[in-house]
Structure formats: C-alpha cells, structure tokens
C-alpha cells in the first residue's frame, strides 16, 4: 500500500500545475485553500458580529441618547435608529445576530473549518482530507448559510430578534426573518455534518505510517472529539429547526400549547405543543456546542505551549482521556441551561451532579497545562503570549461556571450579566485568544513569512486589558441581579445603581476594537513585507506540519512521512538540539522502527 502511495507522489505535483485560477484559488479541493477561505470568511464574520455588539453597547451605556455618526446613522435608517436613537426591536436584533454570528459563523468555522482544515491533515501527514470535494461543498454550504443569515437583515421587520437561542413560542410568532434564521441554520448544520464526517474519516484512515492514536498531536485529538460532537449533537437541532419551520410555515403547533393569547387575540392553532421541547432539543445541541468552541482552542494552546516551553506536555494521556470524557459528558448536562423552567428535585439533582462532574476534566486539563510550565524554558513570542493568557482567562470562565451550575445559586444568577460574563470569558478571551495564538503560530507555515512581533505585542496587551475591562464588570452587574437582554437597564432601581459600570464596559469594548487594528495591519502587511522564515520549521517544532515545504504544495508532503515518536519530544536528554521531530529517524533504534 505504501509503495503505491509513494509512486503516485512522484508525479502528483506536476499534475496540479495545470489548474486555472478558479480551480486553484476559488474552487480548489486543496484542504489548505479551503481552510484559508474558511479562515478569511470567519474572520470577517467575527468582525461583523463584534461590530453589532459595539453598536449595541452604545444603547447600554447611554440609553435613549442619539448616536450621531453622520452617514452611518442615516444608513441604518428610520426602522432601526430614527434620529440615531436605537429602537428596542433593533436592539434585540443586534443581540440575537451577535450571538448567532459569533458562534455559528465566526468561532466554529474559524476553529474547526479553518484551523482544523489547514493544520490537521498536515499534522497527521496526510496528503489532503479523505473527501476533498465534500470538503469544498462544506465550505460553500457554510457560505450560503452565512449569506442567508446576513440577508435576514434586509427582510421587512428586520433581522431575527428572539435571541440566538430562538426560544419558542417567541420565535414561532416572530417576524419573517426568523424563517431565514432557520433556513440559514439548516445550511450551517449541513456544512458542519459534511465537515465532521470528513474530519473523522481523515483522522482514522489517513494517518501517516507509525502515527498511532497516542502519538497524535493534542490538536488533532481535539479536532477528533469536536467532530464527533458536531456529528451527533447537530442533528437534534436540525430536527428542532424543522419543527420550528413547520410551526412558522405550515401552521403546526409543536411548540405552542393550547389557549395562547397573543396581544389580546386568541391564537388560531391546534395547540397541544410544548415550549420546553424546543429548549431540550436546542440545548441538546448547544451544550456540546460549547465544547465545540473550546476544545479546538485547548488543542491550539497545547501545541503552542509545548513548543514554547521546549518541554513535553505534562500528562499527554491524561489530557487525551480528559477531552474524551469532556466530549462524552457534554451530552449529559444540557438541562442545566433550563434550571429556572420549574424543574423538580430529581432532574435538578441529576443535572447539577453531571455539571459538577464535567467541571473536573476542565480542571485537570488546566492543571496539566500549568504543570507543563514547571522547569521549562519559556519563549515569550506573540503566539505564546496569547496562549498563556488563555490559561487565566479560561480559568475565570470555568470557575464562574460553578455558581451557575449549582441550581440554588442559579436562582439569583440565572439570565443575568453574570452568565454573559461567564461564557464570554470562555469564548472571547479564551477561545478567541487561542485562535489569535493559532494565527500567529501557523502564519509562517501558510505564507512563508513571520508576523511582526512588535505589532503582535501591541495587539496582545491592549486586547488583554480591554477584554477584562469588558467582561469583569459584567460579573459585578450580574451579582447585583441585573438581567441580560434589557434594552434600557436604567428603568430598574438596581440597574441604575450599576449603570456606571455599563459605561466602562462599553468604552472598553470600543477600545478593544481599536486594539485589533495592529492585528489587521500586521495580517496584511506581513504577507508582503514580513520577515521571511529561515527554514520550513521556524519555531523548531516537532510535529509533522513543519516537515512540509513552505507553503505546502497541493498534496502537502514531498514523500509520505513516517513517524517514530510521540508529538512533543522537546529537550530530550542526550540530543544535540532541543527538539526531536516526530518524523526524524532515530539512529539508535533504527532496526526496531524499520
């Protein structure tokens, strides 16, 4: 089998020279090109989702005051911001679309679609994904889903405004754009399914010779578990989406109980539905989805920490078992999002206990990463700064989950800013920092040039400060019992008391946006002017992606790599350099490996 592969590889590159512009750059089946498309699209969506939130923060900081931004205010128009004053409908649209875009169009496509696509096949020594055409289809289906979501802004009645959770019956009776949301979601789900099948098959079937499961880089493990979560958790949401679509289009009552009275009118429907059914199906997906957001981030951070501490990761197997357990348990905790629906003691005890249990592997992973620092030799380059910052930020995100997981404490904290702060600490200074780290780390492989390290630091430090400036005061607002999703918080007494914090948060959010400018400049400037890498392995890393030419050609490896050792053999005693790549033939044990 390996002979056949080797023979093909000789004439493979020549064959690909003939592709035209469109086949080479736009409709390419090369996983790296698809990964980059995913990355660019997702970054644009991230920026767009962030912009929605910056606009929304105006209303929270200065409720009811006109936003005078000249043509921009005019552009938004009378149905959204008449004379610059935000309407509550528009506020709800911004909130709902911020959540949807960040989660489904920004972070997941960036973490899985972009990094998974680009890096994973390289790390396992594969020539491409198992099904390149399906991979391409996955991207375009995602793209269409994104377009449908964006189009919903221009539908009469405005964008979806029932929150990213689209709770029924509110979403059942919402304006037209909710239908677009559902159709968009079905596209995005399809895209994820295609992607996850591809990832799993690739990891199972296409690993290089000698690359056993316990020699896989941790990032690949993270993608593997993530793919299973996507594969098995998304279909129930698809089912829920179909049911809500039926409710909206065909007039069924899956989520509508009998005897509903909406604005004084008895709703003419058959009734008999259950509003909690939507929540169950939604959270059955959406809790594993949380781990879809965080696991790839943990993978990226682990790669970068191992590389920049010049030391093997502490407890590689423990880490692997922990994420397997995390993935598995993430299916057993969904109802902790529904504690305030009126749950009985049996159910609440079950879900509280599973929630406490699922916190343990996270603690173990964090501890392992922290222990990896002990007696290491830490290089403070830009990717490492972001990866290191991930640790305390993720710690805050994880710890603040504890009071929310305990149902009695949740009575006070449920649906307050505390919740917002909690999951943003996990995904914003957590996952998004990890994604930035990944961009800085793998950029040289993709372009052959380093990103500028001064601009990198100028990006990192303000980002770290303002991220905390945004999310820490929210914890305090939450403790004060301030509910989330309020268009004007100051009409409540306790809202008035904590209003000054809202101003700080908003200003931090706007400054956070300014802090991204060095990154944007760096990203484009370095493509042309960045320092050229001195070798294919500029970070002196051990994993296989650095064994390819830079940037890797279609087909990736010149010849099929063979793996002889685990992924993080740094500072091995007796070696002359402080890293031993996975594919480096061991002179001492040559017989055994051959």
């Amino acid at each position, binding site marked *: 089998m390996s002979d056949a592969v080797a023979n093909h590889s000789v004439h493979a590159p020549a064959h690909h020279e003939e592709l035209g512009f469109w086949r080479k750059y736009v409709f390419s089946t090369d996983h790296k090109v698809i990964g980059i498309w995913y990355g660019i699209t997702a970054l644009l969506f991230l920026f767009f989702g962030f912009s929605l939130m910056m606009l929304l923060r105006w209303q929270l900081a200065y409720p009811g005051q006109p936003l005078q931004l000249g043509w921009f205010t005019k552009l938004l128009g009378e149905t959204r911001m008449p004379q610059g004053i935000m309407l509550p409908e528009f506020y*709800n649209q911004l909130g709902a679309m911020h959540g949807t875009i960040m989660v489904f169009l920004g972070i997941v496509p960036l973490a899985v679609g972009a990094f998974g696509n680009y890096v994973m096949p390289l790390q396992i020594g594969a020539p491409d994904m198992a099904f390149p055409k399906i991979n391409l289809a996955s991207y375009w289906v995602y793209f269409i889903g994104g377009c449908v979501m964006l189009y919903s802004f221009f539908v009469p009645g405005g964008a979806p*405004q029932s929150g990213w959770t689209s*709770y029924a*019956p*509110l979403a059942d*009776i919402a304006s037209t754009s909710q239908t677009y949301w559902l159709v968009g979601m079905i596209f995005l789900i399809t895209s994820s399914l295609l992607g996850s099948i591809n990832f799993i098959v690739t990891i199972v079937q296409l690993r290089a010779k000698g690359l056993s499961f316990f020699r896989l880089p941790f990032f690949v493990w993270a993608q593997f578990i993530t793919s299973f979560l996507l594969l098995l958790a998304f279909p129930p949401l698809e089912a829920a989406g179909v049911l809500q679509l039926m409710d909206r289009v065909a007039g069924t009552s899956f989520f509508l*109980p009998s005897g*509903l*009275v*909406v*604005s*004084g009118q*008895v709703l003419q429907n058959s009734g008999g*539905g259950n*509003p*909690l059914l939507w929540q169950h199906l939604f959270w059955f997906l959406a809790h594993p989805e949380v781990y879809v957001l965080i696991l790839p981030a943990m993978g990226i951070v682990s790669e970068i920490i191992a590389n920049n501490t*010049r030391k*093997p990761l*502490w407890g590689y197997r423990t880490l692997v078992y922990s994420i397997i357990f995390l993935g598995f348990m993430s299916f057993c905790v969904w109802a902790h999002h529904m504690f*305030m*629906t*009126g749950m009985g*003691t049996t159910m609440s005890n079950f879900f*509280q*206990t599973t929630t*406490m249990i699922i916190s*343990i592997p996270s603690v*173990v992973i*964090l501890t392992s990463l*922290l*222990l990896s*620092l002990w*007696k*290491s*030799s*830490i290089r*403070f380059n830009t990717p490492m700064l972001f990866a290191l910052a991930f640790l*305390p930020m993720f710690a805050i995100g994880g710890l603040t989950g*504890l*009071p929310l997981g*305990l*149902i*009695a404490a949740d*009575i*006070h904290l*449920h*649906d*307050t800013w505390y919740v917002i702060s909690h999951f943003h600490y996990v995904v914003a200074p957590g996952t998004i920092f990890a994604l930035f780290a990944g961009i800085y780390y793998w950029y040289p492989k993709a372009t052959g040039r380093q990103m500028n390290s001064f601009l990198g630091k100028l990006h990192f430090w303000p980002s770290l400060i303002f991220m905390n400036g945004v999310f820490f005061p929210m914890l*305090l607002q939450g403790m*004060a*019992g301030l*509910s989330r999703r*309020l*268009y*004007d918080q100051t009409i*409540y007494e*306790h809202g008035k008391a904590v209003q000054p914090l809202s101003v700080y948060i908003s200003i931090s959010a706007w400054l956070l946006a300014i802090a991204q400018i060095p990154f944007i400049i760096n990203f484009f400037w370095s493509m042309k002017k960045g320092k050229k890498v001195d070798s294919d392995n500029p970070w002196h890393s051990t994993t296989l992606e650095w064994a390819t030419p830079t940037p890797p050609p279609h087909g990736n490896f010149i010849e099929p790599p063979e793996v002889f050792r685990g992924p993080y053999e*740094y*500072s091995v005693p007796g070696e002359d350099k*402080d890293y031993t790549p996975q594919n480096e033939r061991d002179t001492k044990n040559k017989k055994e490996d051959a």
Partner: protein
Amino acid sequence: MNQVSYKDWLPYPPNLSVHGPQIDQLITVVHYVMFVLFVVWGVYFVYCLVRFRQREGHKAEYHPAKGKIAKTGEVAVIVAEALLLVGLSIPVWASWRNDFPPRDTALTVRVVAEQFAWNFHYAGKDGVFGRTDVGLINNTGNSLGLDMKDPHAKDDIVTLNDLHIPVHQPVILELSSKDVIHSFTVNVLRVKQDATPGMMVPIHFEATQTGLFDVGCAQLCGLGHYRMKGQITIETPDQYSKWLTENTPQGGN
C-alpha cells in the same frame, strides 16, 4: 413605606426574604473556593513565567514534574464541589421546590405573564379563584378572561403590574403565561422562575421587610421585554387587608 437603597449593592443587592440568606451563603462560599483556586493557580503561574523564562544558560527539563501537589489540589476541588453540591445546593433547592407552606396559612396569588405586563390574580375573600376562559379575554378590563357568572369570580381581584403582599407571611405564587415564555424575578427576594405558557409552576417565599420593589422579566420575551416591569409592595398585615378591602369589586362580598 421605606425604600431599600441599592447604593451598597456589592456584593449582593439587599436581601428581604427568609430563604435568601441561604442562596447568598452558597454564592459566597462558591466564590471563596473560586478565589482560592484562582489565586493559587495565579501565583504558581506567575512564578513559572518569571522563574522559567528562556535565558542564557537555562534549559528545559525533559522529565515531567511530579505533580503530587497538583493531584492533591484536583482531589480537593472535587471534594469542595461535592460538599457545595450535597451540603448547600441540593438542600436549598429541595426546600425551595418542595417545602411549600400549607395553603391555609399562605397567601396564594396567580401570576399570569403576557407581553409585556404582569397580571396578578387574587382569589378574594372566599379564597377560591374564579373560573377563567381564554375565550372571554378582552382588552377592556378582563385581561384574564374571568368568568363573571362563576360566583367565586365575583370577589376576585385582578391587578396589572401591582403585586401587594403582607410581610412575614408565606406567599405562594402560581406562575403561568398567556403568550411566550417570561421569567418572574424579584432580586431583593432572591426569587426567579420562568412563566411558561401551558404550564403552571408554583413558587413560595416569605418577605422579611416592608417596602416597594421592582418585578422584572428575566427571559427575553419580545421588543418590550425591558419594560415588562411590575411593582411589588410588601406591607404590614393591616395595610395589606386595607388594600384588599379597597380593591375588592362592588358586590363581591
């Protein structure tokens, strides 16, 4: 009527219910655990960053740290979580869900949420709620569809966004909704419960102090979600019965 000040809202807003301190205690203890963990991690983290930074003559050690302390720490976290769960959270929730006061000593009020207001339905002097029917709902004074032919309905009191309860008496609220999911929340009483259409969920509490407070909605329910604000008046038993008498409909005795 004394107004509670929110000026000193840290770490919690004022607490005026019998069960509230237990919730606050749980939140406080959890935050101590979190704080200790974070500080221990943080100190270790910063120490590592300084001590093991890359520099001339410093090399990384290939062999992993023993991690005995870390393992003990992990076990400690597990134990702490188990204690919080079994010792505090489960019993507090059990009494919140199950230990309802007897119906004859408690005041029962039905709360019917709608976009974007709270209807409060009192049984009146006879203590029996009148029959309601969605078909009878209209915008001219019968927001709950109360059937006036039912003798029990005659003395029922229905208020909009105005909940009156006596202090130091157990109160049972039965929550439901006419349209979408709302969530009844009074943060000074540490009370929160979703009002879901098609379901009626009871909750109970007892206020310890009189005053005038906000009732809010904690579940996104549409464009007027933010202004779905009611008022809860906690008053002395005398004031409460006076209010009850004043508001009982004519011929309702």
